[in-house]
């Protein structure tokens, strides 16, 4: 990263030197002209062909304004437009060329360039923008693709994971041939072929509290395309501390959420800034209730549409022509997408900054120091998702041992996965009683489908990974004694299969579907 920054600085310096020298050359030529023809009035007429593509008489009025706008940091501009920061000194229009964009850029971006929402000004803003995308999965792939396509100058790509085959149905920037690659690297390969004019900064690592604020400082807008509460709180905190607007989206199963946070990115304690993730969701969900896409499932277009919308919001922030009009606290809307509902899209107004917010209020207890020192433990805050370990040793059986047991009349196998997974693959003669989170409800469902807990047979529970099967086993031992007249708990014998069907596939049947 340091090397890239150094190279970038060097290029920047060289460009500035060339521009300054060209300006000096122009001035010298003008002086020469005046010395040779003292009778002519001084002229602002460009000497060589018109340098900007803008009529000469407009050049001086238009170009400095254009470049001044473009060269400002976007987050800084958002703050300035809200009166949160002093205006910058207007830089000299030193980088004049004949046309502000390269010839090929007019044709590549022409379809959006002619939109009044974008125009030349917006395209130049995009070209000068630096956007950081954290997570190159189902959200990050489409978001990055559209931002690269739109001609964002620099895209930072952060991901420490590797591409897996199960990603490819939705993470379209990756490819079958790149399974096993780092996701940021793989995304860069795709994006480079899409648009080679964009600079891609690749960070092959997970975002860490120690460095997040520093990373964010180099960018104008941050996109949260991650998949866990820990990273969502970290990214939001770092955006508040670094003063950057955050475009946050998420998706699971058939639903998605989208919200623009910390926009405008006022400093902590300034109530006119946009709220942060903690303002909306001050308490993280219980760790046990958090589902990943691997656990809960995800429909490709659902997460895709959310990622595309993130790109759209980022483009709107980058190209915004006018400051937000009001001094009232900003209340952003959350867009909720629900693929199987009607209406599919719903917009609800969220709140302004929360008075007691831990990071963005005047009572903030979290600072950049909390992050860089590592004293803020996001994993502890969100609760570690430990694997379930609640049944006694004698209530466990390995997949291998289970495979050698005679079944038939001697035992009952209860598969506690949901009906959909049971429909994908199941063991013969197993009974499907999906675990639903409530012991009483589950035991009742089991009895409803004819499971007789009192017949003295050995019960076995199995699930996908060996967690829910423990909960079900415990439900049997803890719930039944109180619900069966006259039967004692000792008559009920239950074991869960350790490691579930994942262990079954590894130990017993390698052809078992690895979904």
């Amino acid at each position, binding site marked *: 990263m340091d090397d890239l920054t150094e190279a970038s600085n060097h290029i920047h310096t060289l460009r500035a030197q060339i521009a300054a020298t060209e300006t000096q050359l122009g001035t010298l030529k003008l002086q020469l002209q005046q010395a040779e023809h003292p009778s002519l009035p001084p002229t602002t007429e460009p000497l060589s062909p018109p340098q900007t593509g803008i009529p000469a008489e407009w050049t001086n009025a238009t170009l400095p304004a254009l470049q001044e706008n473009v060269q400002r940091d976007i987050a800084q501009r958002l703050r300035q437009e809200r009166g949160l920061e002093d205006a910058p000194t207007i830089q000299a229009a030193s980088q004049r060329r004949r046309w502000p964009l390269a010839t090929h850029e007019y044709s590549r971006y022409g379809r959006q360039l002619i939109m009044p929402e974008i125009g030349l000004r917006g395209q130049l803003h995009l070209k000068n923008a630096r956007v950081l995308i954290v*997570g190159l*999965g189902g*959200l990050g792939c489409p978001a990055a693709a559209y931002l690269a396509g739109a001609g964002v100058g620099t895209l930072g790509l952060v991901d420490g994971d590797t591409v897996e085959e199960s990603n490819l149905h939705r993470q379209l920037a990756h490819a079958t041939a790149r399974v096993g690659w780092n996701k940021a690297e793989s995304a860069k390969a795709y994006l480079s072929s899409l648009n080679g004019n964009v600079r891609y900064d690749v960070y092959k690592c997970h975002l860490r509290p120690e460095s997040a604020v520093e990373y964010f400082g180099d960018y104008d807008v941050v996109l949260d*395309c*991650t*998949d*866990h*509460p820990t990273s*969502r709180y970290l990214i939001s905190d770092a955006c508040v501390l670094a003063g950057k607007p955050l475009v946050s*989206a*998420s*998706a*699971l*199963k058939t*639903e*998605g*959420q989208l919200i623009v946070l910390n926009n405008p990115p006022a400093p902590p304690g300034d109530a006119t800034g946009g709220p942060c993730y903690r303002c*909306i*969701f001050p*308490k*993280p*969900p*219980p760790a*046990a*209730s*958090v*589902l*990943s*896409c691997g*656990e*809960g*499932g*995800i429909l490709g277009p659902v*997460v895709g549409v*959310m990622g595309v919308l993130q790109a759209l919001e980022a483009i709107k922030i980058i190209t915004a022509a006018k400051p937000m009009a009001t001094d009232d606290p900003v209340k952003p809307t*959350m867009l*909720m997408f*629900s693929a*199987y*509902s*009607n*209406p599919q899209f*719903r*917009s*609800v*107004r*969220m*709140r302004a900054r929360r008075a007691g917010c831990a990071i963005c209020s005047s009572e903030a207890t979290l600072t950049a120091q909390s992050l860089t020192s590592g004293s803020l433990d996001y994993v502890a805050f969100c609760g570690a998702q430990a694997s379930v370990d609640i049944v006694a040793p004698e209530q466990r059986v390995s997949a291998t041992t289970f495979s050698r047991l005679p079944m038939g009349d001697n035992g009952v196998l209860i598969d506690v*996965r*949901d*009906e*959909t997974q049971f429909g994908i693959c199941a063991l013969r003669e197993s009974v499907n009683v*999906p*675990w*639903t*989170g*409530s012991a009483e409800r589950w035991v009742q469902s089991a009895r409803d489908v004819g499971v007789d807990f009192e017949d003295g047979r050995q019960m076995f529970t199995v699930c996908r990974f060996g*967690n*829910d099967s423990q*909960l079900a086993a415990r439900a049997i031992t803890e719930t039944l004694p109180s619900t069966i007249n006259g039967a004692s708990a000792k008559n009920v014998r239950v074991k869960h299969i350790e490691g579930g069907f994942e262990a079954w596939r590894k130990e017993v049947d390698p052809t078992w579907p690895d979904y």
Partner: protein
Amino acid sequence: MYYPSSAVTQEVMSAPKAPPGRFTLLYFAAASSFTRRQHDFLVAPLPLAQLYDELEKSYAGIKEQVLSSCALTLNLDYVDPEEEASKGEKGAVIQPGDEVAIIPPVSAG
């Protein structure tokens, strides 16, 4: 923990209008998985501060497992049950015909 996906109503349907004397409660994401419903019609008026206790009666465990981390909207505007509770009698009251939405954070992506 898993909830059977097929238990969540999958057919395309919008929430019908609440019958007289009731308000519409919409469930999203984890709230929908937990209740296995997309909406309920509850009796109004109901002080907003009492909504979660009311739901706990119908769906044991929902308060701790789902509601404690949710965002809540009343007629499309964010409301905070704790803030409303702190206002005492001046806190918001859900009226017949209102629409309340329970919005758990979705973090996957």
